């Protein structure tokens, strides 16, 4: 019986946790799998305050949101399996999970909710493989989770939110941010986060890129240069900075592996990170039993990821007969309203339009 098989949620970040919570509340059997030894995804690395309206916990720090989601999942008694990597899924919705890297398990799912997040993009330049060059998320994990300072003099590549937030947190941890480099002519992050660094006197280099990194054993110097109209560095503008750390904050790419294995069709949306699975207004992929939520369905923020997780959780519960039509419609409508509110403003509008395009495209096929 389909109804008695569990809904399997992959990834216990904000999106996956919210999906599992909605399913459990509706009475559906649910298993939440995560590769890490602790749930919460990236939330516990987010020590800054979130944006949005009050319902979106604006002004609340990421790890506080993480703690309250964990409390709720514990109270509901959700079956959370940690240190469990999902390495495959077949068209029959059998999920191949590996526990503690030691033993495999096949779980037959009635519905699959993929909340597998995104991967940080790399940038290749001569010397980028030297120790000391890392992604911004890596630096954030080192300082906020392991309490290790990766270096003393840091150059950040990319002025988006990730770059400026991690830059500020590195300063708070005792590092000097030598500069923030942005290839585009204007800065990419929210004003509030950018202003914190600007007030501290951190130089921003717009229309600039990193040309090379040098050092004997590890990173010692970085050379930056202004770029021309086709983003090629102009040699006469080169300048060299003494740095021991470079943080790459040049965007994220949705993790596509599992949705591809499940047979979900994809769409290329540059504004949301590149190629990603198509989804409808309920976050359902082109495979009716598979939902995609959070960054894997287009890179946005933890707040939108939570709402997408709720949408999928509610819809999956309804599709299995655990929720009435009226309840489902009501919950979907209120969740969509909150999602729309989160996709407003200069930054939000672009994401709103991109999401609308994805949903429209999913209806055409």
């Amino acid at each position, binding site marked *: 019986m389909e109804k008695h098989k569990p809904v399997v949620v992959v990834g216990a970040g904000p999106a996956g946790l919210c999906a599992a919570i909605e399913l459990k509340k509706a009475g559906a059997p649910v298993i939440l799998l995560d590769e890490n030894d602790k749930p919460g995804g990236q939330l516990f690395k987010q020590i800054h305050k979130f944006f949005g309206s009050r319902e979106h916990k604006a002004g609340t720090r990421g790890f506080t949101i993480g703690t309250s989601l964990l409390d709720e999942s514990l109270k509901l008694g959700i079956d959370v399996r940690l240190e469990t990597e999902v390495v495959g899924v077949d068209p029959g919705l059998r999920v*191949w999970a590996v526990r503690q890297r030691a033993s495999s398990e096949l779980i037959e799912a009635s519905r699959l909710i993929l909340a597998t997040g995104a991967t940080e993009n790399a940038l290749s330049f001569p010397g980028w493989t030297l120790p000391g060059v890392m992604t911004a998320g890596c630096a954030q994990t080192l300082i906020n989770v392991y309490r290790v300072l990766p270096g003393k003099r840091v150059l950040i590549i990319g002025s988006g939110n990730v770059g400026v937030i991690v830059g500020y947190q590195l300063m708070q941890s005792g590092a000097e941010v030598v500069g923030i480099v942005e290839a585009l002519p204007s800065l990419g992050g929210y004003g509030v986060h950018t202003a914190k660094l600007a007030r501290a006197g951190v130089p921003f280099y717009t229309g600039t890129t990193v040309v090379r990194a040098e050092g004997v054993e590890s990173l010692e110097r970085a050379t930056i240069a202004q770029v021309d109209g086709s983003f090629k560095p102009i040699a006469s503008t080169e300048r060299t900075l003494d740095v021991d750390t470079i943080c790459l904050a040049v965007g994220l790419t949705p993790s596509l592996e599992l949705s591809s294995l499940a047979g979900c069709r994809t769409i290329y949306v540059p504004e949301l990170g590149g190629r990603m699975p198509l989804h409808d207004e309920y976050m359902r992929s082109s495979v009716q039993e598979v939902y995609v939520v959070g960054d894997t369905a287009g890179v946005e923020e933890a707040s939108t990821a939570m709402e997408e997780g709720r949408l999928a959780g509610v819809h999956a519960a309804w599709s299995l007969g655990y929720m009435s039509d009226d309840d489902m419609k009501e919950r979907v409508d209120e969740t969509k309203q909150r999602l729309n509110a989160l996709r407003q403003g200069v930054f939000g509008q672009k994401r709103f339009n991109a999401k609308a395009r994805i949903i429209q495209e999913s209806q055409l096929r």
Partner: protein
Amino acid sequence: MNSDDERYICRCEEVTEKEIREAVRAGARTVTEVKRWTRAGMGICQGRSCKRLVERILAEELGVSPAELEPSTVRPPIRPVSISAINMEETRERNDREEG
């Protein structure tokens, strides 16, 4: 590592930009073909670091946008799994019993 072309793209398998460009010039048309040709993306991270970089080079060489490239093929297991962890026998037996 002085020349731009000699920078690494796939650090797991130590494949350089030059090798990837050569593969494309010799006929590779997709990320999967570049992977088979050069091993770029076949290492421990399974292309999580280099896939986008390979796509960019491929698109540049072919004169198309990355959106036009064929998505790369995915096969399970999507993470490195030790042979000893693939103890599917037990599961298979149980499934057979249930079906039988």
